[in-house]
């Protein structure tokens, strides 16, 4: 096995085609003798030495080069070197002597993906192993190579009414090959999406899919596929990760799949947010993960049996897949401002209605689309929406509980602030820079009487001080120095980070606020959330999603289990501004012991069952079932030592059946949380999830949609499976996240 890999990216000189890259790779490999050959360069590498001027390399874990000679021996080094002005020499040192591996000219980059350790090097005696020098085209200045893949376009059409959205997603699959294929595509949806419709379209014909138990749907699909019938199958791997399979797409033919879901918009500090995620970020799966989501190179087919895998395009590649988004917003009250993560075209139709579409019609799907709109300042208040199913006379409600205005008049008590930063490889580059800026801004806002600690984790956990320290000027200065040296490298052992942050003795004088900064790119979410459930005690977790396509299921889950709130820090957002909002929120006491007075109304299955604290600017949404007539409803709580109560306006009959689906989706989420706590993936809770999903026609971990066109078989055998490779999210580095041994 090769245990060192050096990849050189040339900015402008190399051909951008795959063929060019392959030839370059071949030539480079041929140029480096394998380890068992004789000569001065024979034998395994012991170290890699970079020599150059002090103005030379930057970036990665050895940058900037402090001396004219730098040695890399770390077994896990993933390093980027870039020559600015003078050439760098990169040499491999073997027992018999050293050998020049590469020279890096100004404008070029060199990746040292992994260097050797002496321990592994001694075992490296296979013919053909040793150092592999690969030359691949870079993205800078070279147009990416287009890789033919079946997913051509995703069309998203959403209708937002108040804070509920109905979203239609159409995926257009087309076979660009000369033989029949099965297309497989792993994609994200919002973590609380209630997916309840599935239609396969072949030409003008529309076939509605049927929701069945997962294994049964899988059997039907495989049988249809084996017999040559066109079929499609939708499977849920996580509440926010789904897999679409489309079988027997003939050469040049197209099959569309339409998915419909409902979800509620988040509301924070005056803004509603509609989010459509476009790509699953590359996940790290700790050893022993029960249900990993592997991040593999496009051409890696080795992981089929090991679990779910996302295949990624190289930075030098792209597919023809693009995405179009249009949204009709009817806010019900005047919309004062609209903003989006992408360039949009907006058409207003009255004060409360707006039609929004992506400018240019479509875009590359490599970062979340986020539309935010601010409604008139004083019009947001606690309100109750209802829907009654005429057939069963069952009522459903959603209650938006908005914090009382007087909450903002009081000051907070001293806190013990624990910053926990993900410093794994996926955070390398822009994300870690944003996280550093966020902590820097937060340190500015600590008050006398507060204490703080900084922890960072990748393969293991490191911390700023042995225990939380007082927020003095000197401690804050030292903390800034500590934060400045944080980089992104290695795995994401988040469980260790959680245990470290919640595990040390509590301060009786201060509430512990754990501020978690991560992209959430891990595959063991259930274990993480289970650990938080067990160990949270009276601490609070405030999670910050750092990046453009973060794992919102994990981040929202951390905040929910940690009875805090979640915020998102995009790569182009102002870290100072986001932290200012955060401190504004926690600088006021939360409304605690929140309870709803239903005034005799028979309510059941209310979610969340235990109401969280109510922070300034952050309402909570309560959803449940009822029977009977809705009368006066009130909210009670405690603000510091004072008891407060306020009323809810008259209930509004929304006439929206979506409330039923949203309630069922929350019930499934609640059952899944209880399942996580119990540690039992089967049993009665699984049956309850299955029954709820089937009754309400919802996707879940136990139910899947399947559709078969039984009218006609396609010719030939079952066809080749083609995995739809996707780009890594914008701002995430392929070289530090997508590697073959993940």
């Amino acid at each position, binding site marked *: 096995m090769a245990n060192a890999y050096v990849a050189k990216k040339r900015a402008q000189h190399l051909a951008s085609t795959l063929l060019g890259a392959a030839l370059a790779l071949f030539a480079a490999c041929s140029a480096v003798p394998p380890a068992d050959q004789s000569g001065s360069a024979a034998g395994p590498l012991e170290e890699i030495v970079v020599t150059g001027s002090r103005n030379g390399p930057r970036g990665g874990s050895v940058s900037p080069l402090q001396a004219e000679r730098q040695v890399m021996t770390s077994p896990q080094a993933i390093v980027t070197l870039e020559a600015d002005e003078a050439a760098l020499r990169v040499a491999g040192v073997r027992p018999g002597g050293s050998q020049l591996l590469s020279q890096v000219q100004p404008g070029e980059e060199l990746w040292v993906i992994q260097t050797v350790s002496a321990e592994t090097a001694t075992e490296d005696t296979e013919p053909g192993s040793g150092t592999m020098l690969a030359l691949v085209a870079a993205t800078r200045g070279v147009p990416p190579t287009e890789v033919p893949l079946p997913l051509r376009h995703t069309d998203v059409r959403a209708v937002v009414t108040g804070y509920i959205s109905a979203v239609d997603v159409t995926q257009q699959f087309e076979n660009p090959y000369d033989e029949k294929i099965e297309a497989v595509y792993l994609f994200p949806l919002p973590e609380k999406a209630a997916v309840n419709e599935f239609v396969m379209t072949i030409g003008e014909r529309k076939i509605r899919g*049927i929701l069945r138990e997962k294994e049964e749907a899988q059997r039907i699909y495989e*049988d249809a596929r084996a017999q040559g019938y066109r079929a499609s199958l939708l499977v849920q791997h996580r509440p926010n990760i789904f897999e679409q399979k489309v079988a027997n797409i003939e050469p040049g033919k197209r099959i569309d799949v339409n998915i419909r879901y409902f979800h509620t918009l988040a509301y924070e500090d005056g803004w509603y947010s509609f989010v459509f995620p476009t790509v699953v970020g590359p996940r790290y799966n700790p050893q022993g993960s029960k249900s990993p989501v592997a991040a593999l190179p496009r051409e890696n087919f080795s992981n089929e049996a090991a679990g779910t895998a996302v295949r990624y395009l190289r930075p030098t590649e792209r597919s023809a897949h693009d995405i179009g988004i249009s949204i009709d917003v009817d806010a019900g009250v005047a919309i004062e401002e609209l903003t989006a993560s992408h360039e949009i075209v907006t058409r207003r139709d009255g004060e409360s209605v707006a039609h929004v579409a992506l400018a240019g019609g479509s875009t590359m799907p490599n970062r979340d689309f986020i539309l935010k709109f601010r409604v008139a300042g004083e019009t947001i208040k606690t309100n109750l929406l209802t829907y009654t199913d005429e057939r069963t006379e069952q009522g459903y409600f959603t209650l938006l509980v908005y914090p009382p205005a007087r909450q903002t008049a009081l000051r907070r008590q001293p806190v013990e602030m624990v910053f926990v930063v993900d410093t794994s490889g996926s955070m390398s580059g822009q994300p870690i820079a944003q996280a550093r800026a966020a902590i820097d801004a937060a340190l500015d806002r600590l008050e006398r009487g507060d204490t703080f600690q900084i922890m960072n984790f990748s393969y293991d956990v490191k911390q700023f001080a042995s225990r939380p320290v007082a927020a003095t000027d000197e401690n804050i200065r030292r903390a800034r120095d500590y934060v400045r040296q944080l980089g992104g490298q290695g795995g994401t052992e988040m469980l260790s980070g959680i245990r470290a942050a919640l595990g040390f003795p509590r301060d009786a004088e201060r509430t512990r606020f754990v501020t978690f900064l991560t992209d959430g790119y891990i595959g063991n979410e259930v274990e993480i959330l289970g650990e938080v459930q067990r160990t949270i005690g009276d601490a609070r977790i405030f999670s910050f999603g750092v990046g453009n396509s973060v794992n919102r299921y994990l981040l929202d889950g951390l905040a929910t289990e940690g009875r805090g709130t979640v915020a998102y820090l995009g790569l182009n957002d102002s870290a100072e501004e986001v932290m200012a909002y955060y401190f504004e929120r926690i600088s006021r006491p939360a409304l605690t012991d929140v309870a709803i007075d239903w005034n005799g109304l028979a309510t059941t299955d209310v979610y969340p069952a235990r109401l969280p604290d109510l922070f300034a600017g952050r309402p909570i949404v309560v959803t449940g079932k009822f029977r009977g007539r809705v009368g006066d409803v009130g909210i009670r709580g405690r603000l510091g030592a004072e008891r407060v109560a306020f009323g809810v306006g008259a209930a509004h009959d929304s006439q929206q059946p979506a409330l039923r689906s949203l309630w069922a989706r929350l019930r499934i989420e609640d059952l899944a949380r209880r399942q996580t706590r119990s540690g039992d993936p089967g049993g009665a809770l699984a049956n309850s999830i299955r029954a709820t999903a089937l009754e309400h026609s919802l996707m879940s971990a136990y139910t899947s949609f399947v559709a078969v066109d039984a009218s006609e078989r396609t010719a030939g055998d079952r066809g080749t499976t083609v995995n739809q490779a996707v780009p890594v999210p914008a701002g995430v580095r392929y070289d530090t996240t997508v590697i073959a041994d993940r």
Partner: protein
Amino acid sequence: MSWRLLQMSLRVLCVAAALQLAAQPEAGVFTTVDVFVVSDTPVAAWQVELTERRGTMQIVGIESGDDSSFRDPPFYDRVATMRGATDRIVLASFSLSEAEQLQRGRVRIARLHVRTVGAAQPDYEARLVAAGTSDGRPIDAQLNLETQPGR
């Protein structure tokens, strides 16, 4: 010694083959069932109950009929496809089009895509639960079924 080894190897191979067979999905027969309504009055909304008397039916898709003014494929009763319920389904659809835009006579209103497993031939029975005009009046219409094996 070698004879015993051979016997053991054969046993292991037989068990492996049996396990592999068990792991393969049972091959079903895919067919379509076309549902027709016969009415001189244009039908704007309908509800049909389909029963398979031998319990072999598994609905795997529901396709729109021939009248394109019905925009969506028919909806189905979710409970009928829950575990164990393979012999009955209730379908419904509606169109918001004006009467003159709707078809009349013998019109295919839905095509069911069905998978059956086992030797028994399916025995279908359909009942028109309700049919109505665009202004909400009930219609007394006829119902026909046509089955077609997958080509």
